[in-house]
Every structure is written in structure tokens, then in C-alpha cells.
């Protein structure tokens, strides 16, 4: 079933280009209800949801920063932050 609109796909493409360099996926844990859409859509199977539960950024060296999890999260839990501005903790 194709749920995403073209607009979403476009936005996803834009985010991807923007952050392909040196970003991290950073959670806003209060927004999360642990639905698992982020982990479900991660192309390499990172447990993004587990990171959010613990309030940790996704610092997995395998993370492609492809933006799937950021774009698909229905609650705006995830965002990108540049590495140099970020100290590794979110809370």
C-alpha cells in the first residue's frame, strides 16, 4: 500500500541531499510512542526506536543518513543535526 504522498517523497529526497554529509539522527523522545515505523523503514535494520526509548542519537557508524526514519515518523520525533554541533546526548 502506498501511503506516502508525492510531497512526502519530495521532502524526503530533499532531506537526504541536505544531510548526506555529516549528520546524525537525533530524537525528541517525548514525542515518541514507540510505534516502530522508524526501525521498520530503516534499510539496514538499525533499531532506531530503541535509540529513541533511551534518548540516544543514532550514532551507528552504519547509518546511511538516508532520511527514511526521519521522513516516515508520523510524529516528528526524529531530525538531523550536524555532527560538530552535537555532543552525543539529547536529554
Amino acid at each position: 500500500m502506498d501511503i506516502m504522498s508525492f510531497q512526502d517523497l519530495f521532502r524526503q529526497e530533499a532531506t537526504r541531499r541536505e544531510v548526506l554529509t555529516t549528520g546524525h539522527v537525533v530524537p525528541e523522545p517525548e514525542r515518541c510512542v514507540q510505534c516502530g515505523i522508524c526501525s521498520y523503514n530503516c534499510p539496514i535494520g538499525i533499531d532506531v526506536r530503541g535509540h529513541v526509548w533511551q534518548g540516544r542519537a543514532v550514532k551507528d557508524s552504519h547509518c546511511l543518513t538516508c532520511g527514511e526514519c526521519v521522513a516516515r515518523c508520523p510524529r516528528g520525533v526524529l531530525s538531523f543535526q550536524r555532527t560538530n554541533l552535537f555532543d552525543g546526548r539529547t536529554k
Partner: protein
Amino acid sequence: MRYVIIGMGVAGIAAAEAIRRQDSTGEIVLVGDDPHGFYSRPGLAYYLSGELSDRQLFPYAAQDFHKLNLRYVKGRVTRIYPVEHQVDVDRHGRLDYDRLLLAVGSTAVRLNTPGADLEGVVKLDHLDDARRIVKMARRAKTAVVIGGGITALELVEGLVARGVRVHYFLRGECYWRSVLDEEESQVILQRLQDDGVRIHFCTEAAEILGKRGRVVGVRTADGRQIKCKLVAFAIGIRPRTELAQAAGLDVERGILVNEYLQTSAADIYAAGDAAQVFDPLSGRSILDSLWGPARDQGYAAGLNMAGQQTAYVKSAPFNVTRLAGLTTTIIGTVGRGQDEDLLGIARGDSETWRQLPDAIVAQSGFDVNRLRLLVGEKRLLGAIVMGDQTLSMPLQKMILTGVDITPIRSKLLAPNAPIADVIADYWTQWRKEHASQQ
């Protein structure tokens, strides 16, 4: 020390995590009667809409349980003996406790329309409910949805996504009147109609019609008949208070607890959807049906049970949800009064949203991007952000931390003020000024 937790929802799990953080040797026994264990209840909506498989709804893996080193008893607690410090567990016998947590959640209010027990009448409370709906949606061409709040729309949208024609019954002319204003409700209803949903205003189901035990239609109070195979309802929830009540604990709408999550009985705590929690700031005891507060309360209860005195400080309730495909963030106090489509509180709801604040409303927005602010004397009391979510995070922070808005208050309240721009500019400036303290 033996800790017994009743209920394996987010409040129960968070309590176990907190206890284990404080006490590495105490025995934790978790008694739960849900055959599926711990899963994301809000995630059921995304499973229904097809965005997620049901196997993905489980946040905890085997090693996570292992880390907590707890004993899981699959069963139902049927009675609490507060004096003896014991509980009865169905088919397992009696269990002693030193500290007990009631994290038993809430349950959907039943429909009492005649015919409500027919096969094909469904609610969305539980993973089994969601699976049943998915299965039935394969054969049902048409469904009737009754009720209000987020869950009713999740049912409507889930069924539409699965190709079912949906008739949505509303008792009045608005959707979720206790939280949304008329215009917001209008935006949502229009979008549903654009998606092909038939909305029946001022309509009540008088009877659910059946044949050989199965739903075949609904008769409305004004005498119309709608053929359907599925009737889904979401008319509110009720905290599970029976155990507490039978044990003589103080109960109102939920199980009453103080800010340390203690009930009226020694060594018994309550948290999550089941608890009605005292809020020292407002002096009231409030029900929430929200994942975040359930987790926070569970965690605080766990710390208190393990001897680390910790007050639960209620922050402004907050939810991000999708209403008719439109991302909507609700923060703080935004609504008022009663909702004729709901009894009491709904899922993903907080009583705080309806406490009429001493505030003036500022709003802007057109088409699907809409912003409504509740402006207090010195700070923002609440906000609804629909559509574009750029301001949702800044507003969440401003409301939760009580940022002083005196410098922009008059700008916000000016006629036709561009409130989104005013907020965005102020937030950028505020953040710069406070960067060093963050």
C-alpha cells in the same frame, strides 16, 4: 524486597526499569494478562492504516527483558489484600509483595446500543482488536464508525486505507469539540469528505441490525438504515479501577494517587492510564491517556517504590497525531467543555486540555496550515499546530518551559497578527539569548 507490578504496558515497564536502576538485587515480579505482552498501543493505528506490520509493534526484545532480570507471570490479578500485602493471581495462587504497582491501564467504554454484542461490532483497544478489524475489512465493503477523539478517526482512516466505504456518525456538527475549535473541526471533516468518507451530522445509532448473529446494518434514531458489515466505535475510555475499588483504595474517575504516585493504601502505587494523579501546580487530580505521561509516571513510581523519593511533576500534556492525514500537535490547554461523542476521556487525550484557561485566543492560518495559541498573562498556555509543523517544536518548548512572552504579547493579540512569524522571530531571538544556558 519483592516488587510486584500489575500490568505490562508502558507504565509497568518503565517502573521495572526505574526499580532496577535503584535496586539491583530486589525481586521484580511483573504480572500481566495481555497474551501479547508489551507493545505500542498508539502504533495499532499505524498497523491498521498499513504503514506497519503487527510484528513491528513490540519495542522490547528478549535481551531487554533479560536486562531487567524480572519474573514474568502471565496471568490476571483478581484481588488485592492491602493489609496482608498479598495479591491473588488467576491460576497461580497468592503472591506476597512488599511494594505493589497498579499499572493496569484503561479500557474502551462499551457501546450500549441494542445489537452492540453482534459479531462485527469492534473497538480499537488491543492488538487482537486491530487484527480482527484488519481481517474483517477484507470482506466488509461498508462500515459505520461511531464516536469521537483520535481513535474514532484512526478507525475511519484505517478502514478507508483498506478500501472500506466509511459512514462516520457524529452526534453534533463538530468533531472533537472538547479540544478543537469549530474551524479546526471543519478542516478535518472536509478532508475526510474529500477522502470519500460519508459524514452523518447530528446522527445517533438507535440499533445495530443483525442477521444470524452478524452485523448487517445500522438504524439511526431518525429512522434511516445504513447497510454495513462492520460497526467500529470509540466513545471514550475508562480507567481500570475495579481491583483498587474492591481493595478499598480511594478511587474517583481513576485510582487516586499523590505526587509520589502513592495510593491511599500503604505500599501500593498506581501509574499510567489507570491513575488519577495529583498535580500540585493546579491542585487537582487529573486523568491522562497519553503514552508519555504513562511512561513518566511509571518511572517515578518505580523510583519511589525502590526508596528514591521522587515527585512526579506533570508537564503540559502534549500529543502529536494525524487527523485526516493532517499532522496535528496539541500542547497544553487548548479546548473546553464537553464532547457529545465521548464519555469522559478519549485515548491520546488529557483532561488538562479542557481546563478553561484564563487566556485569550490568537489564531492564524488558512487552508490546511493552522495555528491557534492560548495566550496567558505572561506565557503561552496552549497551542494547536495543524499542517506545517515548523513551529510545533518551538511552541512545545515555549509552553513546557514557560518562556516569558511579555515582549510579544500585544503583537500576538493584534487583529490579524501574523502570529506564526511573531513566534518564529521571538523563538530565534530567545534561543540566541539563552544559548549559553541550554
